[in-house]
């Protein structure tokens, strides 16, 4: 190694380190994206949404009227998984007959006594978590026509739910500044945007700090 190369080494390392630092900062490496925890009950979104065609708002009942999307009460589950009628069985869906299901058994055994009266709530593991200093009003987004899937991903296809988006500030800002295309909402809900949809201008939002931070 000639002396010239030797001298080039040190600054080279420094530059490399700097580049790495910048890259990690820029990519928001601190995000908990793709966090896929095991839930106490393996609730199959696909079955309920795609097979049974349930709407997100059936369980997450306050997403369109409150900052908080709402978490279904155990009573809501028991409404269909009626312990008296079907017991630990999967309810009968038109042609498909009712049959035993481990997860539902968990729901009933662990969380309700014989009479179906609830005993204990389900300690779901929280996946989507914004820091306390960020105020995210769900209803504003839902009512503005933002499809749930745009941020939460294709939950209706997830056997186990994971954090789809980075939830980083830059990720929010991008949409607030550039706007949200109504056509995307159609695509995200597995539809095909019409020409009319595509013609619609993107919906912008405030990019002012005090819109979310207070």
């Amino acid at each position, binding site marked *: 190694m000639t002396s010239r190369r030797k001298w080039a080494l040190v600054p080279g390392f420094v530059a490399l380190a700097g580049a790495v630092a910048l890259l990690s900062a820029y990519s*928001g490496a601190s995000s908990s994206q793709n966090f896929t925890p095991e839930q106490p009950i393996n609730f199959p979104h696909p079955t309920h949404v795609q097979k049974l065609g349930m709407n997100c708002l059936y369980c997450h009942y306050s997403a369109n009227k409150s900052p908080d999307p709402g978490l279904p009460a155990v009573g809501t589950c028991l409404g269909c998984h009626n312990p008296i009628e079907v017991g630990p069985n999967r309810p009968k869906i038109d042609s498909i007959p009712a049959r035993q299901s481990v997860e539902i058994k968990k729901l009933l055994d662990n969380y309700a006594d014989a009479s179906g009266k609830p005993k204990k709530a389900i300690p779901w593991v929280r996946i989507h978590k914004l820091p306390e200093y960020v105020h995210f009003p769900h209803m504003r987004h839902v009512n503005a026509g933002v499809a749930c899937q745009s941020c939460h991903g294709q939950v209706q296809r997830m056997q186990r739910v994971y954090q789809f988006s*980075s939830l980083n*500030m*830059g990720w929010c*800002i991008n949409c607030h500044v550039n706007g949200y295309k109504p056509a995307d909402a159609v695509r995200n809900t597995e539809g095909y945007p019409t020409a009319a949809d595509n013609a619609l201008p993107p919906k912008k939002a405030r990019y002012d700090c005090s819109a979310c931070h207070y």
Partner: protein
Amino acid sequence: MAATARPKTMAELSPRPNVASANQQLPGVIDYEQVDRDIGGSLSPTAGWFGALAVAIVLFLWGAGAWTYQIYWGLGNAGYNPPVMWGVYIISFVFWVGIGHAGTLISAILYLFRAGFRTTIYRCAEAMTVFAVMTAGLFPIIHIGRPWKFFWLIPYPNWRLIWPNFKSPLVWDVFAISTYLTVSATFLYVGLVPDIAVLRDRATNPVRKRILAVMSLGWRNSEKEWRHFARMYLFLAAFSTPLVLSVHSVVSFDFAMAINPGWHTTIFPPYFVAGAIFSGIGMVFTIIIPIRKFFRLQHYVTINHLDAAAKLCLFTSLVVGCAYLVEFWVAWYSANRFEQQYFWNRVFGEWWWAAWIMLTCNMVFPLSLFSQRLRRNPTWLFILSIFINLGMWFERFVIIVPTLSHEFEPWQWNHYAPSWVDISILVGSFGWFFMWFLLFIKQLPVIAIAEVKEIVPPKLRSPHVHEDAIDVTGRHQAYEPDTPGEFD
């Protein structure tokens, strides 16, 4: 071997006082070997040095401990009384940045002006600059409430898609300080290269030799290298000259850009720069006078050099004093009640004593330098320099604390008293500064060997046979016999 007689004193060699200049010789210095020997000799560690270093390190560790404590418990452990939200840390920040000004002034500006008296003191001053700025740079971080977020002041691409506020003087500070530190460190290093080469050649310890070899960038003392060196040095001098003015101007904006009475004034940039140079030269005295004594370098750093530096000190002191008076005049002339009440409060209010320390130390005492006898009296210069350091620290105190404690809103007037944490960290900063400086003076020449050699008369013929001479440019001159039959 050449008998080294006791170096003649200044008095013996040049009875009448003179002004040092570029062609000023050092009568006390006989030849190059003596230069290498004296300066090189100053590098061997002594017990006293180890003691001093130990003290410095202990102080530094104590300050570091205090900072850790403060980070854990929150800034509440520092002595802030709202609305006095800035205190000892910002005072010390400005103080240390100020110290860091003399170095570049002496090494760069005086170099451009060919002021010869800089030759022997500039290395010391430059090192002081670098370490002082290193110290100053810590204080803003110590000062802020969430030090772990300090990097937010640095513009870098990030996923938040937000940048620092380039309108804020604090962001300018970040740029100013980091630039200044980089440039002055480079300047110091470049100037050091030939001397490191000398040390390399004299080094006996192989490890040390290897390190010095790397640091000297393979300096071979060739003519080409000297030409490049001279050009590079000139360029860096020219490059860092404006920085001397800009850095402390930017620091002064921290205050001038706010609307507070006593801060919001256009005189601040020149006032701060002058003050900075003043304090810097004070610190140079504080450092160089003991060094020349303990390292026995009196015949390098001559009384003439101190004399000339003292004149510069006197001049800056006059500028600063003028600025003080102008401030009062402006306050009166503005007919602005806030301003007037504030300046009255400055000298007769709760902090009258601080104001008077500032005025006496920075304005009155330096007037003694009009007397040549005192100018040429190292002891007095040393004492005075201590007063100057004190006075300049209190100048920043007077700027910051009385303003914040006695501002627009009378209901929020308050007092201020530093806590033991403030004081510990301030003391620790001195430990940190002197730790670096002490390490420096024992590892690298505290006086620029090469430049000193420029003003030392070349080695004259000696009775010894086969002795070569090195001329000013360091070029090797083979000895030619001129008396026939000498080798016979």
